[in-house]
């Protein structure tokens, strides 16, 4: 329970929220990121509606609106805005949204995820070979081979993103609320997809760097 630093009408403590229920001023409380954006806890999010909510809330709580306010209200505005911004940044990107979903349920992409996912092993191995060859000698053939790998990795990344969207939809449909085993399966699935995406993103970055050095040389 917290009290509003701006409120003149009510001084009573209230449940943690972004805005004071009495006067609408920022509270600077610690709440979850869905609540900060006034969104239901659902994984499929309409990007346009979320941006509108973000802009609308920013207009009401941003420190620019509290330049002449007392220090406590200015401080609350800054904290609330920092939270709102983190919420928007985290939930806008599907990958960080998925990671936050795990975090929210006390789970993490653990250290035991260091192993290359089996379905990616061949692709990772092959790409690293091609990168090494290009590193050794910058022939047009080696360059073309790496570019081909880049396209393949980009394709795999796109496919993984589609899988992620499907997983999100499944959560929202039944949420595994009733069925513990269904829930476990969805978590396992989400972890696997996110870890695959992490691998592919690293791979894409390595390819990008190598191509950049080749271009500069």
């Amino acid at each position, binding site marked *: 329970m917290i009290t509003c630093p701006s409120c003149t009408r009510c001084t009573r403590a209230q449940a943690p929220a972004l805005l004071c229920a009495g006067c609408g001023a920022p509270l600077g409380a610690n709440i979850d990121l869905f609540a900060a954006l006034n969104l239901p806890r659902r994984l499929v999010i309409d990007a346009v509606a979320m*941006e509108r909510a973000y*802009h609308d809330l*920013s*207009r009401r709580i*941003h*420190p*620019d*609106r509290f*330049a*002449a306010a007392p220090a406590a209200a200015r401080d609350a505005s*800054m*904290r609330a*805005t*920092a*939270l709102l*911004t*983190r919420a*928007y*940044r985290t939930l806008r990107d599907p990958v960080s949204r998925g990671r936050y979903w795990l975090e929210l349920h006390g789970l993490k992409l653990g250290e035991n995820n260091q192993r290359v996912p089996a379905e990616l092993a061949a692709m990772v191995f092959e790409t690293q070979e091609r990168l090494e060859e290009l590193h050794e000698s910058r022939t047009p053939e080696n360059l073309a081979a790496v570019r081909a790998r880049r396209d393949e990795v980009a394709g795999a990344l796109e496919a993984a993103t589609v899988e992620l969207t499907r997983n999100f939809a499944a959560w929202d449909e039944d949420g595994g609320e009733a069925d513990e085993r269904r829930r476990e399966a969805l978590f396992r699935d989400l972890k696997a997809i996110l870890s695959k995406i992490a691998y592919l993103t690293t791979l894409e970055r390595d390819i990008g760097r190598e191509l950049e050095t080749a271009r500069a040389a």
Partner: protein
Amino acid sequence: MARIFGIDLGTTNSLIAVMENGAPRVIADPETGRTLLPSVVAIAPEGGVAVGDAAIALEADPKRPSVVIRSVKRYMGLGGGELGAEERRRYEFADFSGPVVRFKIGDRVYTPPQISAEILRALKRRAEAALGEPVERVVVTVPAYFNDAQRQATKDAGRLAGLEVVRLVNEPTAASLAYGLEQLTDGYVAVYDFGGGTFDISILNIKGGVFEVIATNGDTHLGGDDLDQAIVAELLAGLPEEARADRELWNRARAAAEAAKQRLSTAESAEIRLETGAGALARTLSRADFERLAAPIVERSIECCRRALADAKLAPAAIDAVVLVGGSTRSPIVRRRVAEVFGRDPFCTIDPDQVVALGAAVQAGVLMGARSDLLLLDVAPLSLGIETMGGLMERLIHRNSTIPTSVTENFTTAVDNQTHVDIHVLQGEREMARDCRSLARFKLGPIEPAPAGLPRIEVTFLIDANGILNVTARDQRTGREHSVDVKPSYGLTDAEIERMLEESIDLGERDIEERLLIAARNDADQILAALAKQLREYGNLAGDEERRRMAEAAERLAAARAGTDRELISRLVEELNEVSTPFAHRIMDEAIGAALKRKSVDEIS
């Protein structure tokens, strides 16, 4: 409540603006009508300051030796050891160590915030004289790519000038506000800001009055100054080393180079003539010559644009409008390259010298609640992190995070009964801590004795809306707030600023104008006292008519002396001098006569 003013504290020129009837307006000097105040500060060795055109005049005046500092913005937030060899030649410095640059002038030492404060004070005086209302609260613009120390130094300058800096605003963002882009378009806008000493590129997403910066990049030591210096290097290339190290020659070469660069914005060639110890140096610089010198400098700015686009995950074609800001965008080579990179002609309908100040005034309007239709969501330009084991930089806040932004980290002890945890905060994009810029250090504690790993101290790093770091800490077990004594790695401490504020009051640092007025009054006092004494002792030597004329002139002078018109006082001193000269001569003759008489008496005896 008093109005909030907008200030563009530029490398080359500074301006002050304010909202009037819903539109921003730059405030001109009521005497000269000029809107730009050259960011030039002259300091006399014995104290005394002149700013702007008055300082430039002193640069060329050998009778009144002053140290004239240009482009002080380039020194803001730098440590003494960070000055390059070329920069060390420019001025005399007190030392090349310590957390802040110290200019040495006479036997006194000045830091960049103190010198910038003089520019701010001059702007404050100008606006107060023009509008007849006090200027107390201001928005000051800074380059988007300014780091924490540079921002803090700018805030310190405001404090030293007796101003409350309500908000620091990034220059390209301010420029986008001045353009009223919210009325023109919803979409992506790139602001290319090539100023006198700094370069910024910001990419914004504008939607329904919300200006959301999505990426920014830049170089705080890249600007028109570098173009001038490239020309100077070319000009002086044939001269021996000691001639090139001559500060006075270099200053004249810089002025000639700047003038030539400006002419080349419209002309195809420019003549440069420079007197050196070894005769005159004449050179014709064609636009092609200039562009050959400028190309590598302009390319550095283009590289920043590429990085910003990559961070924004946008192709150049996705940008709906490009806006040019800063005096250096007058050079055709700059306009051409920007048009090539973004594939469209840039906007430049507002004077590039004024647009930032106008935008600062608009943001001041937002803060006063007069423009609640607008909202700026800016970003932190550099990643923030801490040094971890093995000298690595662990990133806590990524570059281009919307501000204000905060992150909370838990810290614990590594050995039993450890009483403090040392934390080193860094800013930058490199992997190794030593390659990033040190921002601050602080100690957490005292921690109550406990086995290693048991204490839990929650530290919140918050970058505020000015882009400046604030740190708070809380002991999770006791819930007690820890006071965090953050020691900035660069810049002034609060105690130093306090001392500077006191000193400036104690020493009564005065304007050079004011000092000249005092000198004129002293002259008046001297001549009035001398005349009174002469009239008492030799009154018989003056005729009635002469006595009346002298009395009138003395009266006029005494009246003027009570006022502040220095030139009038000087003129009346001259007049009284002239009127009383015959009388003075007679006194001399009389005195000499008396001496001669004495002499003859002596000789006789």
